[in-house]
């Protein structure tokens, strides 16, 4: 990128927001794959969102868990590693809505149950049921607003992981925008199509939040060099 580009100013500054979650218990529990499937079809989108994103928030430095709670429970408590792997491998980043993500999870389980109907018979022991939880999101604007890539990179280094989380995950999937907020702004307000695409092509579900921050910083720093 040239020096001229480095000082390119966006028509519309990027305002960093942050998001916080409060977790709501539904009292809905599953003790078998059949229960899980039934509830998956009926619980709120906020439940699906919570159980496919919780791990990102709980483990910010190193994640010991597969990227969704359904996979974790199926592996740990139903003892079915194959189905767990299928759910853990769902490419969450390609979905643009919770509805589509939910359909994909349901379809994977249904396909598996056709192949291995004996899975229906497995029940977890008391106390190990799957508890459906939903997330309430609170979106809060921060004081940080930036107009250039350099400013953007500097602020990205400082904001909380909650803020990065909001713009990468929540904006895209929960607020159903076409791409993450960073890529949207870089492309639409700064005309940085290639840079926007580089960030959009990251699979954020395979990073911890701190690693994701570092990766995006690296891309931005390289661009302003």
């Amino acid at each position: 990128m040239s020096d001229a580009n480095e000082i390119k100013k966006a028509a519309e500054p990027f305002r960093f927001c942050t998001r916080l979650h409060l977790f709501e218990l539904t009292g809905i529990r599953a003790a078998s794959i059949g229960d899980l499937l039934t509830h998956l079809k009926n619980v709120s989108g906020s439940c699906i969102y919570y159980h496919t994103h919780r791990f990102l928030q709980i483990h910010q430095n190193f994640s010991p868990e597969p990227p969704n709670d359904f996979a974790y429970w199926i592996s740990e408590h139903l003892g079915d590693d194959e189905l767990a792997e299928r759910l853990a491998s769902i490419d969450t980043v390609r979905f643009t809505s919770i509805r589509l993500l939910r359909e994909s999870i349901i379809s994977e389980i249904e396909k598996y149950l056709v192949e291995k109907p004996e899975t229906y018979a497995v029940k977890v022991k008391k106390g190990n049921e799957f508890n459906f939880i939903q997330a309430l999101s609170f979106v809060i604007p921060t004081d940080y607003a930036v107009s250039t890539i350099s400013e953007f990179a500097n602020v990205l280094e400082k904001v909380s992981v909650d803020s990065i989380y909001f713009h990468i995950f929540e904006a895209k999937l929960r607020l159903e925008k076409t791409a993450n907020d960073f890529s949207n702004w870089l492309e639409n307000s700064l005309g940085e199509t290639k840079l926007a695409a580089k960030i959009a092509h990251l699979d954020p579900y395979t990073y911890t939040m701190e690693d994701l921050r570092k990766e995006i910083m690296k891309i931005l720093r390289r661009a302003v060099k």
Partner: protein
Amino acid sequence: MASINDYKNITGAATIDTLKVLGEKLKGKIVQHVNSTAVGGGVAEILTRMVPILRELGVDTRWDLIKGGEQFFEVTKKFHNVLHGKKDTVTREDFNVFMETSNLNISEVNTYGDIVFIHDPQPIALVNKRSGNKWIWRCHIDVSQPHEAVWNFLKEFIVKYDASVFSAPAFSQQLPIRQFLISPSIDPLSDKNKDLPREYVDSVLKKYGIPSDKPIITQISRFDRLKDPLGVIQAYKKVKKYNDCRLVLAGGGASDDPEGVQVYSEVMEASKGDSDIHILLLPQNDLEINALQRGSTIILQKSLKEGFGLTVTEALWKAKPVVASNVGGIPLQIKHKYSGLLCYSVDGAAFALKQLLNSPAYAKQLGENGKEHVRNNFLLTRHVRDYMLLFLSLFNQGNVIHL
């Protein structure tokens, strides 16, 4: 008492700035906590730390108490025990005693808060006097398998609240009101958890006659069967055959608890003849407990039943490798082989202890992961944040709330 800014070094400035923003959003609202005691017990301990911080953040927070005589508190203690699964008979008279005192409190306690935040069953009936304000019931106990009659009795009141709060998913019940999941927390700046100079830690070990010549395995808990102190000694004896080590079993006084006295004497009997077992009957002294945890090589929590298990949180915060039973809130804190080791039996505990004693680098890594897990999820600042979000949720609709 610590100021909110003192937590910046621990949580990062962004976390504290966010709390300040939330405090702004709650300006003008009075939050009134009500419980049954100002000192002693986990609720009073957390409110003592939390109320000043909420005030500092600009939330007009008050704390009121209900009154009750000996008979009332005997009944509420019985309720507490049977809700936890202990076998006991609850009579019609018990419910009458509860309601008699509750009715007195209903006429005497002024519930002026915009948000009235009721802690545990003792003041639960105050909701009968609710007017246009918001009411929250905070359940601090494990009600995963509650006594049916007591739960049904309490439920008559619970359904009148706007929302309820539980500490772990397994504790929740099917209820017609909203139920939130808010874990308890520890205060990293309290005497029980703050950093201590090595000299002080050594002086406490010396005071209690515990040489640092061998690895030290410690369990901090009351002398209570549910904490399985005899199982701890059995596990230690199995370990001792292969790894030379010391065991410290330290806990609060048991003089007012006949069963505790009995358990203590059984523990003394089981440890007889082994000078590497140190049984410490301690007065409440948070600094010394902190020092004992910090001076240990491994912390054990081999409970048969637990609430959330804050002693585990405390140990993890000190970056100690922890071996703990997979009960209550412990699995929320320990992800097996990542932030500690979970066990289900004496043999399992002994095996995990040997593993950690023989692999200090692995033990160190577990301890470090555990500390970060607590930093992200179980510190007072997260607890304060969740409460403020809970308050805000009462005045906003929808699953995505723009503040």
